[in-house]
């Protein structure tokens, strides 16, 4: 494509005429590589000199030392007697948690927003437009700080707003009743795993059948239905066999300081999630909108001519086709959301960046911490885009 146009890197190597492009190309590359390597070596040796003087040579030994600092929330068990390495993992998982939930919610809200922007209802269309224009022109960090400050306006935990005894709103977050494993949970879990296995077997068998007959077909909904059905049967069977439900509802109860039971979504997490979802949904909404607009008008007219309702047209004709256009830019929005979650530090949510910052502060090991931090974000980005690429290929396949 650009074979005939090797642009020179800069004014450094300028050759007014050329006879053998290949030799010149090789020379240019060698010079470039040496220059880059020399620069990197220069920076590296300066850094090592400085660190040696400060008695701070980089080492990863601190990873196995107890961290001693607490982390407000964690998906896996963690306390200050555990290592810095563990603390770092807690940070990664917290980032994954907020990014994962955020991506799902932002997609849903974005989809609604994109469709609303194209609605034939004038009011809805313009409300959506106002929302988009407000949100995307204000920095995300400001929005996060706004949402976080907003949580202060809720009452203190002792005077929580009680919604039916199941949901409590207070300035430390939201506490809600949550299912909890009861005595016979293990019995039911056997049913659940059984259901999953049967579902997978069904799915694989159907797929092989489709492949043999060389015909397209849908197996996933039935497989899910089977797995779900078996789990449901097991749920009731366990009840009748043991006389109690395998899962009970844990009702939050206000103790002296905090709620016990149920689950509490902290205000930090809530503010971060709401901020990220509202912000990212705007961009997803615009992608959905242009994706829908990219589907030719004839498709819509044909669908309507066949007697499909507007809802059916959207669901069965427009969206599946729009998806093809939507996926690549959607991937970069998902990555943006993940990267933006690093602003958690402003709302005291212990994400990866926050924990890494604290580790650096306690150990003084800036270089290893930064390397680990960047490697982690790159891996998360890589995994997300791998998954989305896989999904994109699948969509294209179904499309034929």
């Amino acid at each position, binding site marked *: 494509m650009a074979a005939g146009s090797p642009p020179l890197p800069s004014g450094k190597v300028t050759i007014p005429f050329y006879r053998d492009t290949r030799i010149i190309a090789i020379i240019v590359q060698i010079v470039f590589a040496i220059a880059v390597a020399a620069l990197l070596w220069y920076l590296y040796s300066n850094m090592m000199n400085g660190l040696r003087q400060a008695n701070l040579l980089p080492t990863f030994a601190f990873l196995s030392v107890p961290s001693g*600092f607490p982390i407000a929330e964690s998906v896996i068990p963690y306390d200050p007697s555990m290592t810095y390495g563990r603390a770092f993992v807690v940070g990664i998982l917290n980032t994954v948690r907020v990014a994962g939930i955020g991506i799902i919610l932002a997609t849903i809200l974005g989809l609604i927003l994109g469709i609303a922007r194209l609605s034939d209802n004038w009011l809805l269309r313009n409300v959506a437009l106002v929302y988009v224009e407000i949100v995307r022109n204000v920095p995300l960090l400001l929005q996060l700080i706004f949402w976080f400050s907003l949580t202060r306006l809720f009452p203190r935990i002792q005077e929580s707003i009680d919604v039916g005894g199941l949901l409590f709103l207070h300035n430390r977050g939201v506490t809600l009743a949550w299912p909890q494993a009861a005595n016979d949970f293990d019995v039911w879990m056997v049913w659940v795993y059984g259901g999953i296995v049967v579902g997978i077997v069904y799915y694989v068998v159907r797929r092989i059948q489709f492949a043999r007959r060389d015909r397209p077909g849908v197996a996933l909904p039935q497989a899910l239905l089977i797995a779900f059905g078996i789990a449901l049967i097991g749920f009731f069977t366990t009840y009748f066999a043991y006389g109690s439900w395998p899962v009970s509802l844990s009702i939050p109860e206000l103790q002296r300081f905090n709620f016990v039971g149920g689950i509490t979504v902290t205000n930090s997490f809530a503010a971060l999630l709401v901020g990220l979802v509202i912000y990212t949904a705007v961009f997803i909404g615009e992608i959905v909108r242009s994706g829908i607009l990219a589907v030719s008008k004839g498709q819509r007219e044909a669908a309507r001519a066949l007697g499909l309702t507007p809802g059916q047209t959207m669901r069965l004709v427009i969206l599946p086709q729009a998806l093809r256009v939507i996926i690549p830019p959607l991937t970069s929005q998902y990555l943006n959301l993940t990267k933006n979650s690093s602003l958690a530090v402003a709302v*005291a949510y212990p994400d990866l960046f926050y924990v890494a910052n604290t580790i650096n502060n*306690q150990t003084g090991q800036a270089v290893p911490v930064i390397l680990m931090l960047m490697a982690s974000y790159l891996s998360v980005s*890589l995994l997300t*885009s791998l998954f989305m690429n896989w999904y994109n290929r699948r969509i294209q396949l179904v499309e034929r």
Partner: protein
Amino acid sequence: MRKQMILVLAGLLSLVLAACGGQAQQAPTTAPAQPATTAPEQPTAAPPASPAPTAAPAATSAPAGGTPAQPAAGGLIERILARGTLICGVNNNPLPGFSSVDAAGVRAGFDVDFCRAIAAALFDDPNKVEYRPLSAQERFTALQTGEIDVLIRNSTWTLGRDGNLGLDWAPTTFYDGQGMMVRKDSGINTLEDMNGATICVQTGTTTELNLADQFRARGLTFTPVVFPDGDATRAAYDAGQCDGFTTDKSGLVSSLTLLSNPADHKILEVTMSKEPLGPAVKQGDPQWFDAVRWIVFATFQAEEYGITSKNVDEFLKSDVPEIRRFLGIEGDLAKGIGLPNDFAVRIIRHVGNYAEIYDRNLGPNTPFNLPRGLNALYTNGGLLYSPPFR
């Protein structure tokens, strides 16, 4: 896209490996505190962005009466004198009594007075200080990277920081201990009452670590709410998002004045830790470290002799040999640490002795009215003790 990402990862991985490799080779040399660290730093030209000296440095560093300072060539003292100002790291959040900015934009407080004392010793002018406000998280990095000359930001001296962070601590200027503030109506009287409580604490501090230790030792659980910013931590406690707020007791006393309703809160009796707060400098310039150390000692010694900013001129006429040596009238003791011989006089005249500094910022005539406690001279049952000036 995917290929590129893999390439990137591969590149990064090799960087990580390189860093590991580098560490493995150099590991043995890090263990002992080798004399190599004291080798003079490369004298280099200031980068273009660094502040150009606005005033003529030579004129300001010429002492009034004493012998000229003899800073080591290429040392930090020489660079500070050439620059014309001392860069002093202080707290970015207002901590009334220690470091805060008044309505007229003037920075004042206990920590600030020690910045001024160092500037007075170096320049005979306590105002030649450039304050760099720093958060708890940035402070040590700022010192390590040479962004500041000295850090006087209520920073606790610990073995870990002294060793691992590559810093050196001058004598403690304020003996503090970690305390806990709670609401009066919460019914909390001791730490044991706080099982299951939510506690606000600032990250990047020793208090964060002590809190965890103290609760673990007592077999109590707690939920931390950790902010990188002191203001945010206090605001969260004020809004009732935490049941307790922990930091150094001096910090609590000072924060109390910033709460929306100070009368609703109290500070528990318990002291959770030792918090010796003092100036810190970057490791590797022993002369500068000595200078800061003896500047602090000079304030103690002045109080011990009863020399104040008011009567210092009378003491200059004294014929007691000890006092004459201390004030630099006899001998040339200060030369060895790169300070002018009359540095103690400069400090006392411009900033005062320790008692004056304490009373001005924290004493009975301030809203804090903190008793001296451990921060009294050893002769009064405190811990302040200066080695002899001879």
